């Protein structure tokens, strides 16, 4: 363990620990006994058929969904029902949604500045500076004064990424970030995420973009019916999945 990034699940100080996680929606078991560790700097791609619980899992990590039992520890803070724990965790976890969820009544710049000012207590000038820097990073700074609905889907999603980054999170969660996009816009968003990965950001990404998974993932986690069925490094997983369910899934998405 010299200088190279540790990506081993045995990392003594993981960024996220999920243990025996159970989440039910009524009588439906969305997650049953899920265990996952994410090391600092690790990039995980979560995949699986729809309804397999992958979105629910990452939504539990920042407590947008409340888990029913099990433990979630993010950067040393255990998620309990206490509001301060929840807010501590949330302010360290950035999230990007399938449907962007930008604030439509605020300009791109204001979207980015709101949380740093209100949650981190940044002065307006600081928040402005930070937001512009991150908008430049996702190459959308020239649209800073437009409103979300004036932008294309791909641009909106890049703004959403910048907005999450403005909180300087320690980990980023992506919930199918390209699923709502027109095909020609998928690339610009994926490139932005790849760049983020290259900067060393810890990330968990729910996606079906297998090319992207091959390029950035340290580990692919395959879920089905609320459990983790298989995990491995991307080359092995895509070439020779162990389980029948993973094989069937891969067959389907590669047509």
């Amino acid at each position: 363990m010299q200088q190279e990034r540790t990506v081993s699940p045995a990392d003594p100080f993981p960024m996220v620990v999920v243990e025996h996680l159970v989440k039910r929606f009524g009588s439906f078991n969305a997650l049953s006994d899920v265990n996952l560790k994410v090391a600092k700097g690790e990039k995980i791609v979560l995949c699986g058929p729809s309804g397999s619980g992958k979105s629910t899992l990452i939504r539990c990590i920042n407590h947008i969904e409340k888990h029913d039992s099990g433990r979630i520890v993010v950067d040393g803070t255990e998620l309990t029902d206490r509001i301060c724990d929840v807010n501590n965790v949330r302010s360290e976890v950035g999230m990007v949604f399938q449907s962007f969820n930008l604030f439509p009544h605020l300009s791109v710049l204001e979207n980015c500045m709101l949380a740093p000012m209100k949650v981190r207590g940044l002065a307006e000038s600081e928040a402005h500076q930070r937001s512009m820097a991150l908008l430049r990073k996702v190459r959308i700074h020239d649209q800073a004064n437009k409103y979300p609905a004036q932008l294309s889907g791909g641009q909106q999603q890049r703004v959403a990424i910048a907005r999450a980054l403005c909180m300087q999170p320690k980990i980023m969660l992506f919930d199918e970030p390209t699923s709502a996009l027109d095909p020609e816009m998928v690339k610009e968003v994926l490139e932005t995420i790849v760049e983020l990965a290259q900067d060393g950001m810890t990330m968990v990404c729910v996606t079906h973009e297998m090319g992207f998974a091959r390029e950035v993932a340290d580990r692919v986690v395959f879920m089905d019916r609320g459990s983790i069925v298989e995990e491995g490094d991307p080359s092995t997983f895509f070439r020779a999945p162990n389980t029948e369910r993973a094989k069937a899934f891969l067959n389907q998405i590669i047509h």
Partner: protein
Amino acid sequence: MNSLDFSIVVQAWPYLWSGLLFSLSLTAAAFLVGMLLGTLFALVQHFELRILSQLVRSYVALMRSIPLILVLFWFFFLVPLVLGHLSGNGRPVPVGATYTAFITFGLFEAAYYSEIIRVGLRAVNKGQFEACQALALSRFDTYRHVVLPQVFRVASPIILSQTIILFQDTSLVYVLSLTDLLGAASKLAQLNGRLVEMYLAVAVVYLIIGCAASQFVASLRKKYAIAGARR
């Protein structure tokens, strides 16, 4: 039949003007109080605070099922009795017609505005709340900076309609012997017998104010439009 003589309206203008000012100030006050309380009521129901939201719901149902004119009477006659009882000496404490009007209109309109805002709150996309959670925004900031601004924008045409109705309803203060625009006109009309002229003139004033209000909101909407918004 004598022909129309509008000079009578010009002569009466100072009196009509004072009536109009009363109508406008009552509308403005009831709008402010009503929106403030109405937003509060809507939020209480939105958060489903158990006992409180039950209370608010009953209050809104009560106010909306009773004619405003009856509420005015109640306040005018009941509140002095209640105050007298509370003060201990048992003698009614008169509130006065003007205060009664301002308080009643504010409380009454709050019920209507709260319904508008409650519906508006339900129309805000769930993703907006989730985005706020993900950014660790407090509940207060979520509603203050993200949710309510969207609600007010979406609901502004209905809020305006309600406010125009409110403006017209101010004429009901005649039951408290207060003089609003319409009240001033009818008093003069009965004095000088020029009913048609007076009522026509007043109708024009109502029309102008109603149109101006619509224009004002339209320009606001243009200015603050959620540019290009589809959802």
